[in-house]
């Protein structure tokens, strides 16, 4: 486990961990491990257009430690907590570097959700897939629209940066909405 995630974990307070543990037990029906099916069964989550990406993120090795690869079949509480820790709101007193670190970590998490085949680039297909999923709940838009939107978005990136959506470029692209990221990470574990 990387030092950063440790840092994140440390700042999750004890009572938050207890609450999360209860939830973990509830989801896994008091077993030690959590499977994909357990998460898919959550009724509210079933309506989420990007349900599969979210669930996948919990079983993605890359989110557990730096340099991890592939996905696992079941996770324990520690992994569950690690993934959850990505969503912590930042502390108020942080140095600029720490803020940057946290920002990068969160970005990496999002990036991993895009980059399904784990090669460090988001290709047009992957991006299209995400956009399709996003639009899938809003009715009969069809794949064509999703495709053209993804293309347009990719073209935007291409004209800003070098085009290939490696992590750096995604950052350039998302620098402007990083505040959403910060803002949106609410207190889960309050």
């Amino acid at each position: 486990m990387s030092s950063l995630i440790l840092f994140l974990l440390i700042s999750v307070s004890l009572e938050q961990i207890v609450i999360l543990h209860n939830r973990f037990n509830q989801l896994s029906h008091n077993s030690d491990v959590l499977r994909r099916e357990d998460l898919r069964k959550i009724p509210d989550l079933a309506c989420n257009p990007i349900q599969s990406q979210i669930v996948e993120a919990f079983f993605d090795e890359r989110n557990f430690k730096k340099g991890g690869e592939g996905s696992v079949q079941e996770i324990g509480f520690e992994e569950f907590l690690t993934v959850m820790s990505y969503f912590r709101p930042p502390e108020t007193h942080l140095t600029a570097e720490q803020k940057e670190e946290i920002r990068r970590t969160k970005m990496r998490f999002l990036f991993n959700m895009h980059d399904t085949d784990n090669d460090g680039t988001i290709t047009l297909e992957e991006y299209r897939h995400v956009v399709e999923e996003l639009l899938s709940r809003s009715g009969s838009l069809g794949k064509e629209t999703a495709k053209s939107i993804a293309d347009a978005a990719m073209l935007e990136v291409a004209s800003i940066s070098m085009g290939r959506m490696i992590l750096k470029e995604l950052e350039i692209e998302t620098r402007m909405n990083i505040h959403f990221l910060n803002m949106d990470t609410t207190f889960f574990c309050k």
Partner: protein
Amino acid sequence: AIFGFFIWCSILSLFGFGANAVLSQKRATSPQSDFTTRVPKDDGPQTFPEPEGPSLPVFTLNYPRIQIPFEITLWVLLASFAKIGFHVYHKITIWVPETCLLITIGLIVGAIMHSVHERPPAVLTSSVFFLYMLPPIVLDSAYFMPTSPFFENLGTVMWFSVVGTLWNSIGVGVSLFGVCQIPALGAQDISLQENLLFASIVSAVDPVAALAVFEDVNVNEQLYIVVFGESLFNDAVTVVLYNLFNHVAELPVVDAPDVLLAVVRFFVVGLGGILLGVLFGFVAAFTTRFTRKVREIEPLFIFMYSYLAYLLAEFLSLSSIMASRISVGFFFLVTEYHRPPQSRAELLPANENPAFASIIVVSIVTCALTMKHYVEENVSQRSCTTIRHAIRMLGTVSETLIFFFLGVVTITTDHEWNWGYILFTLLFAQLWRGLGILVLTQIINPFRTIPFNFKDQFGLAYGGLRGAVTFALVYTLPDSIFRKKLFVTASIVIIIFTVFVQGISIRPIIKLINVRTTSWSRDTINVEIHTRLMEHTIAGIEDLCGQWSRHALKDKFMRFNRVIRKILIRDNRPESSIVALYKKLELQNAMLSLETISGDISASPSLVSLHEKTTSYKPKKTVSPSDLKAIHELLSKNMYKIRERTVSYTGKHTLPDDSCAREILLRRHTSVRRSLRTRSLRDPEKVRGQKYFSLPLGQSLDSRFTTKKFSCEGDNSAPMLNDLPARPNPRQWLRSSSRAKMTLGRLDTPSEAGSMEDGQRAVLGRHGQSRLSSTPADVTLQAPHQRRGAEDREPDSKEDVSASPPARRRTAELPERGGGGARRPLLRRPHWKPQDELGDL
């Protein structure tokens, strides 16, 4: 320049009021009181010359008949001229807020009027303000409120606007009352109720100037929206408090039930207003579902329904007070409390007071919010623009008039100047505002994801300027308030102080203390996609935690929303915000390109479309039927404008349809793609050379292309590529940026010429990987390679906008043509020979 303007303006005003003054001299015989009420009853239709006997007058002047509308028009016109004047020299409005200038002009006009002993028209009465001036102002700010940040910060906004205003009113009121007990001040006769009333008036913030500054310096969204929302809802709260204290101030004795009644009314009125507003918003949206055939009256519905909601709220406010009285009465029955009968009797006539504007503000706000959401999807593009413009215009006119009027009134009315009271008001208003922000932020901060830091708090406190509503409220105070003149004077002092001192200094201070800023440009598809993605992620994680909070709630609301949309919106194409933004950007660019390069849009694709045709089959020497077909197509493509023009007739009761815009959009798609594909191989001369609609005499299509081919092959293609960055052709870049608005010209730098290849490879995705092995020598082939990349994207985005049937018909052929090889890049690439590719051009 500005002085010249002032002189010009005063001449104009002299002209306007000169006529007035002449008239007033003429009417000097009439009683003065008559004049102020502006109900001329002294002289009927005046005739010049005096009619003698039954003969028909040749020339009649009937000024009193037109007096009121005429003067109002002059006032509005004058205020509008003033507004134009400010923007003649735009640097002034950067450093001095518009409100300051308006008040200054008002002061000048007031001085002129004072010197000719003219009194301002007494049009600003309580009912005029509440019925005609306030609704446009509130509608304006409610309609243009950024919805999503508002709901994200709803709690904070409400906290500051409700509790903050209460805090300010009570704090200022009580401390003023305390100060009034000092005998030296000479204000001992002002009762607590009157002080509270005055304090509630003074606590209405109106930070137009502050918001303009915030917008300019890109202050962070939370701060902006809180100041915005606070000003919106605190008007409502202030009006409620105003009516409440106004009502209480008229009572001889105040007892507990009255206070309780007030509190109950506060909530009943608020909730009632919200319900009424939402109801009317839905009704309006539902109505616009059926206005497809009568586009020209669409905007009317917005105004009529919101005004109806407003009026009905005003009407209902009486009954809501009744309801609250019943509940309070019930409460006292239970507690067996007996109210003095005489106070109950006092209550009744107070209810007939027409100024019960309490819920109307809330109702119009919610009505606007609801309506905006659904109506804009039902109405046509034009109606939408009309609605926005009209709302903005009405709001601006109202506000301008009030500020202008403030300046005039400041000079022309008699003031009661009480140094002590006025200075203490000023002091307490600032003090309690600052304290309130400090304390309330401490309470709300733990509940916020992003807490307000000290700088934000300063921005919040310092942005609390007083403005139009304060003045209007104090000016329309009933005359039964004994020290009304003092209140008017004190309010004017506060307004002028805050608007001038704070309004002018806020920009340097905000810049100096370096408040957190955010970039506001959300207008790229990537940002939208990622915002949505994050929202969904957060909602999902919250669901996963089994926790309900804002995002999960928003998710639920969106599901509920989908059902409502089915009922309210005509062609219910559930549309995600991403798609909407995408279409908006596309349309914007289409319009932009139409404005800037009209003509070029049809000219540039001409050759390329031919080129695509010719690559698909072998060149022949004679003019074949296929060539004719190509020419046909070329002509039909380029002549579409003329066709449109002949077809579109507008009847008296119909508006021109906008299907033309859609076709333009479609065409823009193709032209953008083509410009992308060919831009590296074109130079301006060649582009210009291609601008013909038919072939030069004596040349067949193929001969044209073969000559070009030779010329290209004769060159070494490398210089052409080096040529690429050095050739600034803004038009091309403008067009190629249809999807990437923000990066105009970035690629123009030499260093990035090489990186384009990378870019294209990435866009190509997997297929592009095969190009990785290209040797440096390959660099010369880069440009055709780019063409490939663009072609790859082409077929996909082609279909998406073909919503209208005629447009669909015309594009049906496009994918086939463009996609011949491009749809199967893998199949095509191995056979790809660079020289052929170059030669074809």
